[in-house]
């Protein structure tokens, strides 16, 4: 083994002051920015101010919602169903919307993970023909860029087709309702899909090529390399994408309002999978309906529900940070 003695390579010389520069040079003891022009100083101040303003905005969102939330939130709101009553003391809590949010998130992410991971694996590991791969990539971008209200209306269009009756319910006249946990959940999957694809691809791309080759060199084919090495290595990336996607699903309102039906209470259909084919509400639609701009006028309950929703989403974001730090295989 060679012990290389390297003389320090001459690095780039530090910039020397230009003697022809008319601007006053900073003297020792003078402030760091003393040589700066006015526009530079204003720009720097603005950058500082913007950063601080964002912190203030974030802190006030959490602060106000926590203040209102703690003020109005009562434990029985989490355990009682909403009731139709003008008297706010009898209008119940938001157990159904809370369960609805969780149910919709589970349905959406349960569809988005396998589909998204499949697309990401195909794009990174196969991706041929190249034209098709580009087409798929543009498809992902279109889905990612479509406003969720457009997805919602599109979903209604699709799921109201006669043969889609199994996903919601068919009225006696033969028209399909098109609104249910399943139909809303599948559109929610489209919202989470680009996030799952994106972070799975990133995770797969960060696995060095020689790790794949090491598996091939042991006599494994591509399929078992993907299943046994690449996907386990990408686990934390997939989890990150899924968690981000769950956050987006939790927070989406348009799809819920259009595709989950207008019932505040969870209303299952009869028969198998009745719950999934039935309608209901989520925290977002509950907040909307109880806020002064919605139908109801119960801002206290809207604040309390919004606080719970915010906590759920913040927890998910916090989880993203934890997942990203842990379990990520590090090769040299």
């Amino acid at each position, binding site marked *: *083994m060679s012990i290389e003695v390297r003389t320090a390579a001459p690095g780039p010389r530090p910039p020397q002051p230009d003697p022809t520069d008319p601007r006053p040079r900073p003297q020792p003891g003078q402030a760091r920015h003393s040589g700066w022009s006015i526009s530079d100083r204003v720009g720097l101040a603005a950058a500082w101010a913007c950063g601080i303003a964002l912190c203030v905005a974030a802190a006030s969102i959490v602060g106000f919602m926590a203040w209102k939330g703690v003020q109005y939130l009562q434990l029985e709101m989490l355990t009682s169903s909403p009731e139709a009553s003008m008297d706010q003391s009898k209008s119940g809590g938001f157990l159904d919307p809370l369960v609805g949010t969780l149910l919709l998130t589970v349905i959406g992410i349960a569809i988005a993970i396998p589909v998204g991971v499949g697309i990401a694996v195909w794009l990174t590991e196969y991706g041929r023909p190249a034209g098709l791969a580009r087409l798929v990539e543009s498809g992902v971008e279109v889905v990612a860029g479509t406003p969720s209200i457009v997805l919602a209306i599109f979903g209604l269009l699709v799921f109201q087709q006669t043969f889609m009756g199994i996903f919601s319910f068919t009225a006696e006249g033969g028209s399909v309702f098109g609104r249910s946990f399943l139909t809303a959940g599948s559109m929610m999957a489209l919202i989470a899909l680009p996030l799952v694809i994106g972070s799975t691809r990133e995770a797969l791309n960060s696995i060095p090529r020689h790790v794949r080759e090491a598996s091939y060199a*042991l006599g494994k084919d591509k399929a078992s390399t993907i299943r046994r090495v690449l996907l386990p290595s990408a686990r934390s990336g997939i989890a990150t994408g899924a968690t981000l996607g769950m956050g987006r699903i939790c927070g989406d309102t348009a799809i819920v309002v259009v595709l989950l039906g207008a019932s505040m209470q969870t209303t299952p259909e009869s028969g198998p999978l009745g719950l999934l084919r039935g309608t209901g509400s989520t925290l977002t639609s509950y907040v909307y309906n109880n806020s002064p701009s919605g139908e109801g006028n119960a801002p206290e309950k809207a604040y309390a529900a919004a606080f719970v929703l915010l906590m759920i989403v913040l927890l998910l974001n916090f989880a993203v940070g934890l997942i990203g730090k842990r379990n990520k295989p590090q090769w040299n």
Partner: protein
Amino acid sequence: MELKEETPQDVNTPPAEVPPLRRIVVESETVPIRVGDYAGPPDPEYGREPWQLQAGLDGEPVWVEERMRTEDLSIAYGEKLAVKGVDLEVNSGEVLALIGPSGCGKTTLLRSLNRLVELTPAAKRTGRIILDDQDVDGFDVTQLRSRVGMLFQQPNPFPMSIFDNVAYGLRERGSKKPRRKQLEPIVVDALERAGLWDEVSSNLNHPALALSGGQQQRLCIARSLAVSPEVLLLDEPCSALDPISTGIIEETIVELRTEVAIVIVTHNLQQAARVADRVAFMYLGDMVEYGPAGQVFGDPREERTREYVGGGFG
């Protein structure tokens, strides 16, 4: 390998006639030098006994037998010819080192032996590669690769436990899923042969990526050995490791050559001198010289080899 300074004694060629080698010896005072160690039969081509400092590790001569052979092997990446008509023999019982400056085609040659080079879309190969008298093109590629194992520049254990890493190549081979109990003796044996067993025996279920770099590389050796290959290809296996780990890996390589034919690509001439029994010097895709290590380092026939082992190529 004994950890003591080796001085040339009892050799055919007096040290004064091998200036490049002396250079190597002088440069690494603290490192055991093992030149040649060629224990095969006399090489008639050079008309003399192979240069030899030391017989096999335990003094026993090692039986040498051809395992792999290339015939007029050329590999091109698009228009660029990376390997030009190389004939090479890979023997069991010895370590073959491929040396040469960067970009001379040694890694490409190595990667062609287990057909890994085919993963590069632009690569084209002509000529034949023969494993145990059969053309490798006739093999199922997964079968070929389980007979010709490979170790990479960077240690690359899979993100799973130490045990599962070694057992990886054994699983999913047939329709039946082998139980851990069935795999355990093979895994333990592979870890022992790779010289890692003593360090990991109590934590086989720990994640492999928590090991040190040198341990990871030895785990990769064990992983390859578990599928009992006949040939082991090493692509600069120590270039990412510290000197101590390098020493341990080299020791392992030397020990393993009695059971598996080893081909090592290395930039490090001293390493080649320490581990190789036979050396092939490549330059710009040509195989310039191929012979026993002692001869290539001590008395190269070609001027280009002389310049390279003497540091002429820089």
